[in-house]
């Protein structure tokens, strides 16, 4: 037969026949057991009289649109099984995460491939169908013969997601384990994409994802989420897990998130944190949210006044983790007073022995920790800044404000 595929809408209602070809009942649901096989349909749930029977995949001789023929009729009554993912109950019409398209989608239908083997046919999930074509199939299911539906649907473009790219959403952590749901697909995504997805989910589902996700990925993702959603996620998590995630965030982002929480929750989380990140975060929490102190972060490179280009290069090699977003170096004297700001690119055209001081532009622009937001955005605009140093009351370098922070600020308005 040419068509080696089957839709869930067609599978449901398919007649099941015993060895003598007598009709036992019709398919009501199908289940996979992810711990055994990630995509093969392991059981067919067949409804005949009052009770449902379970047909195991190795009891099937053939599957086609004409029905399912068995080779073994020792069927057992259906009992709910925690390890089963039932396609109609747990997947159809539910939301799943499309790892490739990076969004939350709703399942309208499922496409199986029919695998022929000498000992019998089996079916595997190939695609999860969304979009209009599958909507048509659902509406026609049981009303229009399947062959007609297959012909009719070709006028609409298919819209499907490969099963391997789908991530099922399950809020119960026990069940996640039994169903072998991993966060691999999610953890491979860009944190900003994952953040958009998380914002689309219900609070319970968000909690389940953050509870089970690697703390580092969770931290990156949380930084990208809207402030009020951030707060509700952290509040729903166990304090310990919340503290693990906050520790992984950059201190100024951590401070921003904690400032959004209720005071008690925020203190509880700080309590659970390691000493070093905690001190840094607490310091930042002192500043008013919309002052320079509240906007700055403490990830910057400050070097002694007399450093040469070669010396600076050495220092950078030792701090590779911040290179990705670094664009300015700062020079400070022995009392930590800010002396100069050097654009990073200057280093590449200067000789190794050149003192950094000579590469500095004439004007050094900086702001006080108390400076207001609108003044800061004005400075960025006026001087075309990428990074703006912030100094405290004693003239010491306290942190830097970066352009991306200013962009977020402006977008909020």
């Amino acid at each position, binding site marked *: 037969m040419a068509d080696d595929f089957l839709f869930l809408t067609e599978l449901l209602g398919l007649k099941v026949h015993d060895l003598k070809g007598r009709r036992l009942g019709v398919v009501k649901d199908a289940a996979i057991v992810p711990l055994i096989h990630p995509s093969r349909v392991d059981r067919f749930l067949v409804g005949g009289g009052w009770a449902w029977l379970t047909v195991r995949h190795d009891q099937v001789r053939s599957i086609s649109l004409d029905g399912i023929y068995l080779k073994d009729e020792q069927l057992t009554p259906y009992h709910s099984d925690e390890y089963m993912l039932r396609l109609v109950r747990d997947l*159809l*019409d*539910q*939301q799943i995460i499309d790892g490739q398209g990076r*969004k939350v*989608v*709703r*399942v*309208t239908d499922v496409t199986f491939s029919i695998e022929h083997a000498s000992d019998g046919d089996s079916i595997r999930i190939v695609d999860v169908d*969304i*979009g209009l074509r599958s*909507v048509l199939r*659902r*509406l026609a*299911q049981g009303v229009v013969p399947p062959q007609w539906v297959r012909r009719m649907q070709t006028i609409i473009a298919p819209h499907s997601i490969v099963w391997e790219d789908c991530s099922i959403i399950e809020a119960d952590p026990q069940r996640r384990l039994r169903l072998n749901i991993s966060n691999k697909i999610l953890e491979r995504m860009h944190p900003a994409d994952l953040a958009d997805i998380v914002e689309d*989910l*219900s*609070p*319970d*589902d968000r909690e389940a994802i953050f509870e089970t996700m690697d703390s580092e990925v969770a931290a990156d993702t949380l930084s990208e989420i809207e402030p*009020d*959603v951030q707060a*509700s996620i952290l509040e729903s998590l166990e304090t310990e897990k919340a503290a693990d995630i906050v520790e992984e965030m950059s201190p100024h982002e951590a401070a921003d998130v904690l400032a959004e929480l209720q005071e008690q929750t925020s203190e509880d989380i700080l309590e659970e944190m390691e000493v070093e990140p905690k001190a840094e975060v607490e310091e930042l929490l002192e500043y008013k949210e919309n002052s320079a102190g509240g906007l700055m972060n403490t990830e910057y490179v400050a070097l002694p006044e007399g450093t040469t280009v070669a010396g600076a290069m050495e220092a950078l090699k030792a701090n590779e983790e911040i290179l990705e977003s670094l664009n300015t170096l700062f020079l400070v004297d022995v009392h930590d007073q800010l002396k100069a700001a050097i654009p990073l690119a200057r280093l590449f055209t200067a000789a190794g022995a050149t003192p950094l001081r000579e590469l500095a532009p004439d004007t050094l622009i900086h702001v006080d920790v108390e400076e207001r937001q609108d003044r800061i955005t004005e400075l960025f605009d006026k001087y075309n800044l990428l990074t703006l140093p912030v100094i405290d009351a004693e003239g010491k370098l306290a942190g830097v404000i970066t352009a991306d922070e200013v962009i977020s600020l402006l977008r909020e308005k």
Partner: protein
Amino acid sequence: MLKRFRYQIAIFLSVIGPGLITANVDNDSGGILTYSQAGAKYGYLPLWTLIPITLLLIVTQEMSSRMGAVTGKGLSDLIREEFGLRTTFFLMIALVLTNFTNVIAEFAGIASSLELFHISRYISVPICAVAVWFLVVRGNYRSVEKIFLVACFLYVTYIISAFLLKPDWKEAAIYSVKPILMFDTDYITMLIAMVGTSIAPWMQFYLQSAIVEKGITAKEYVQSRVEVVVGCILTDVVAFFIIVSCATAIWAHGPKDINDAADAAVALKPFGQYAYLLFSAGLFNASFFAACILPLSTVFTVCEGLGFESGVDKRFEEAPEFYWLYTLLVVLGAGVILWPNFPLIKMILASQVLNGVLLPFVLIYMVILINKKGLMKEWTNSPAYNAVAWVSVAIMIGLTLALASITVKQMMPQAKASPGGSAPVAQVQSHDPSRHAFKANVPESRIAHLFRQAIGIGKFTD
């Protein structure tokens, strides 16, 4: 001084949540005109409906917001997950059709409010349709929303007007608690429309999504419940004063149908020359406000339920179904109004009747959903709550069936209209003819006649 004032406004706006917004959108063009018509045609008679309507409104809105807070999902999401695609699909079709008539009603409200100033609908409606489309799609709607909300204070004019008109308060008080049923098509239509306009089906979808979007969770739900209840009561307080104003200013001089906005504006006549201005501003604000929210809410509901991408932050290619449906609703909704001699006010009233007919079905799904332990955990309905909900469903379906049977009877006049009238004729009149000086000869349908006999309402002199 000015600063202090601004500060107070800021506080006021920060506490306005989904409940109050919904309550205010509730009194849209359909609301204003339905209540006006009720007062103008039946005087104080329909006032009794307001108490049960308020109760039903509180029950339904509270259920929507509770479901939103506990599940974190929209109503159409839940219907899809629990009842499957086919149910969702047909419900969505019914909702789109009903809401479409509501969109028409909003544009009709815009047209008729501006026609008071002799601005042709051929100018006002296209301009407003384009304005609505851009305001919502280009995303500056949020910042304008607060202006609409503040402008909703125009409803206060009805309260002032009611007092200045010196209505018969004793009469109004009596009819507020004295139920009067008449088996007259117009009266039943009016009842359904009053329920339909107060408890519009689309409101339930809108409110639940708004609660979800606001991020209100089960923990914070208790505070939000207060807001929802206050909002519901406010809606019906406004309704009460609209009816009383119209009863005193219009019906007392002879019951009449409201045929255009000028008729309805009479209710504000104590404001003299400003009456038209106030009425027009109020109606325009309410209509435009709802014209922004209603099509958008409809499209979100449909896309959520059927699993299409949605959101004004998406590009057209990302969410084609969303943009197409939205644009169609706005363009067709406004376009219908431009049909020559389109009966604006009739259309507005008819849309509210459709709301009332769809409502029980939406309610049925809501009550089933909210009683699912798996979804709502400890937040399911109490038995008393369920009783109120199911009784409301039964009454609404009863009213709808009564209306349908009467309408069908009337649509086949030839079959029945043997001269002399074999169909019993009921002379409708209230028990106090000196004040309620209106009589109507209404051919009573046989079903209505039997029904009336069965439940023993003797309001008719046969």
